[in-house]
């Protein structure tokens, strides 16, 4: 396996991303969207696509840079640091990975549209309050040569603005994955007001027609295409959350150095020092799990589940600790909306639930480890 050290390419990618995002999408950008009642900035995504990020997992033949999952995690991590609102994970990671499993001409054309920033995707999978693809109930009834989809999907992240939807539905006893335009007749989207101000929607399907051409991969075999896509998304989300933790932690350490109490910087108080140092340790350990997940997805994708779940579990825990310590160490000011820490706390909470919470991933790990 490649080393657990960032390659020169990855370091350069991170530097470039940081430079661009500090300018184009600091936390103030998310705040601006929130204050304007928006959840999505199409221009920002276009700029990201121009930077090549939308195509980071697309093959070069489709105009992508094909840099791999570890690189996608690097980008997601940088985005997490300033809570960048974009459909990167849904589109450039999950949808792109799904399409690459198919890799026929139509899929390659779709990858080209993703890479150019022309088309965005959302994954419509959850039906209950907890991530559980196997419990999918929504039905795709066979009718003639095609299907009729009926049902409802909740917590469709980026679903309010996506151009296309990847929809998991039950075809008899099996599951099938559909790739549908979001404006297909019978589809209604209801935007949700999310605590992290990111785009999420409930999507309803009423007698929505789908043909065999709308099926991604094989009928009755969603998972061959979907599992790698979900795992890629989980790893990138873990990286984003590690970025959220790093962003919150960075703010906190700065505050500890600046803020004075009883005449000295509060960072001189040993109890806070030890808690800050512990948090740094947790961040470092999580960083290893993230890097490892990226490497595994790039090198042995068929055998990356444990590594991906490890990354998501660790990142979930670390981000929670980072934002909780962040608010507490900031004191009253950390509770004010005028201060950014609350945004980190909210995003960490949403990230904790999306694509499987701590318990979901810890359970996968326990099973893999013989519990």
């Amino acid at each position: 396996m490649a080393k657990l050290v960032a390659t020169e390419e990855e370091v350069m990618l991170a530097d470039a991303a940081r430079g661009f995002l500090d300018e184009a999408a600091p936390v103030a950008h998310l705040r601006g969207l929130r204050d304007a009642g928006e959840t999505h900035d199409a221009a920002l995504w276009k700029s990201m696509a121009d930077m090549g990020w939308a195509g980071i997992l697309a093959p070069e033949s489709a105009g992508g840079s094909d840099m791999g999952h570890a690189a996608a995690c690097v980008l997601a991590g940088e985005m997490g640091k300033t809570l960048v609102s974009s459909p990167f994970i849904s589109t450039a990671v999950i949808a792109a990975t799904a399409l690459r499993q198919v890799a026929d001409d139509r899929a390659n054309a779709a990858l080209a549209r993703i890479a150019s920033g022309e088309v965005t995707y959302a994954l419509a999978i959850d039906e209950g309050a907890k991530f559980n693809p196997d419990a999918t109930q929504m039905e795709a009834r066979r009718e003639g040569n095609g299907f009729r989809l009926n049902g409802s999907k909740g917590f469709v992240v980026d679903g309010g603005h996506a151009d296309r939807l990847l929809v998991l539905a039950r075809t008899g006893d099996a599951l099938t994955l559909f790739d549908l335009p979001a404006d297909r007749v019978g589809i209604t989207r209801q935007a949700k007001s999310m605590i992290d101000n990111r785009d999420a929607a409930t999507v309803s399907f009423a007698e929505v027609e789908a043909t065999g051409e709308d099926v991604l991969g094989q009928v009755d075999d969603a998972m061959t295409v979907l599992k790698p896509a979900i795992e890629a998304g989980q790893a990138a989300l873990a990286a984003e959350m590690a970025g959220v933790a790093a962003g919150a932690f960075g703010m906190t350490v700065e505050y500890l150095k600046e803020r004075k109490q009883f005449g000295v910087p509060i960072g001189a108080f040993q109890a806070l020092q030890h808690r800050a140092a512990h948090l740094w340790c947790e961040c470092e350990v999580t960083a290893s799990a993230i890097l490892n997940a990226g490497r595994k997805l790039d090198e042995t994708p068929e055998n990356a589940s444990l590594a991906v779940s490890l990354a998501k579990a660790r990142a979930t825990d670390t981000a929670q600790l980072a934002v909780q310590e962040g608010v507490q160490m900031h004191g009253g000011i950390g509770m004010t909306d005028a201060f950014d820490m609350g945004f980190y706390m909210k995003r960490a909470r949403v990230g904790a639930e999306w694509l499987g919470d701590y318990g979901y991933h810890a359970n996968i790990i326990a099973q893999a480890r013989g519990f």
Partner: protein
Amino acid sequence: MSETSEKLSTFQAELRAWLEENCPREMRDGRNDETTICWGGKNWNFTSEAQRTWLKRCVTKGYTVPTWPVEYGGAGLSRDEEKVFHAEMGRINARYPLQSFGIWMLGPALLHFGTHEQKLHYLPPIARGEVRWCQGYSEPGAGSDLANVQSKCEDKGDHWLVNGQKIWTSYADKADWIFALVRTDKDAPKHKGISFVLINMETEGVSTRPIKLISGVSPFCETFFDDVKFPKEQVVGTINRGWDVAKYLLTHEREMISAAGGSMGTGRPLGAVIADCETGATDPVLRSDAMRAEVDTLAVELTLERYKDQAEAGGSVGDASAMLKYMGTELNKRRLELLMAAGGSDALEWDDGRAPNWLRTKANSIEGGTSEVMLSILSKRVLGLPG
């Protein structure tokens, strides 16, 4: 049956009958949230006719402040009678007729430090819900160091003149009066030049501005004093010894915040929430975390009870109240994290209503003295550790 318990039984029977007759049906839903609390005050708009009636009837019996002496508007109940009172109120899920910082904080301070005249003047309007108070302790930049009071209060012969700013004054924009810490001697050591004063919010020079929190619109305000004049007698306790009053009150506040932890957000028992959750039975992590939280909740509640019993038996709670505050608020944060986890993606929408409660608890371990300050108090004053 002893004489005392016979007396208690009589009281219980009478109270039960009175409640049955006088507590309006609409007031028996046990609700205790922003939309249903009756805060009182000059400009209070009752949310329903039933709320108005319930307050009026309780006022006549002294039941808004059941343990205060009758002459100050209370019912003069003993601790045992108070327990019965709460049990009977709980039995029919009665709402509190009135809640306020006057009841929770200024009242106890005046009962302990006020003159007889001050008690007669200020307490009955609180009991009747006619005057609503807010608290002015914290100042911008002072953080955990409550004694770092900069608001300057000068003796102008026949009146005080105050200039300064307060932060985290809950409901300052709705209150009629404020009790505040101000600096009356800038040359004295930090704790020795502070006075505890009472100021009418309508006085010229007093203004407020609400603070928006991460949980959304909040009750907190900033309050500004610009050349505010007020009468000399509006000081509680000795001039320059306001810190004693403040300390006494902090103890009350800590107990209050800790006790409030008991109602825990939605008010639903954690067990029921976890049992209903999609993964409550299958996820050992969620289940185990909830079990631990439940164990700790029961034990913290018993501790609150034990400390009350101890206080009643003449023992002083004193600095140990910092323990109640610390354990209660940290536990409350844990519980609300679990309620959010149990809610899954449903709980991530503002409309769902769980998120503001969850975010609000994050302030519990900051307001009224941070957890870190509580631990430092305990380590120095209870354990006697050096430094």
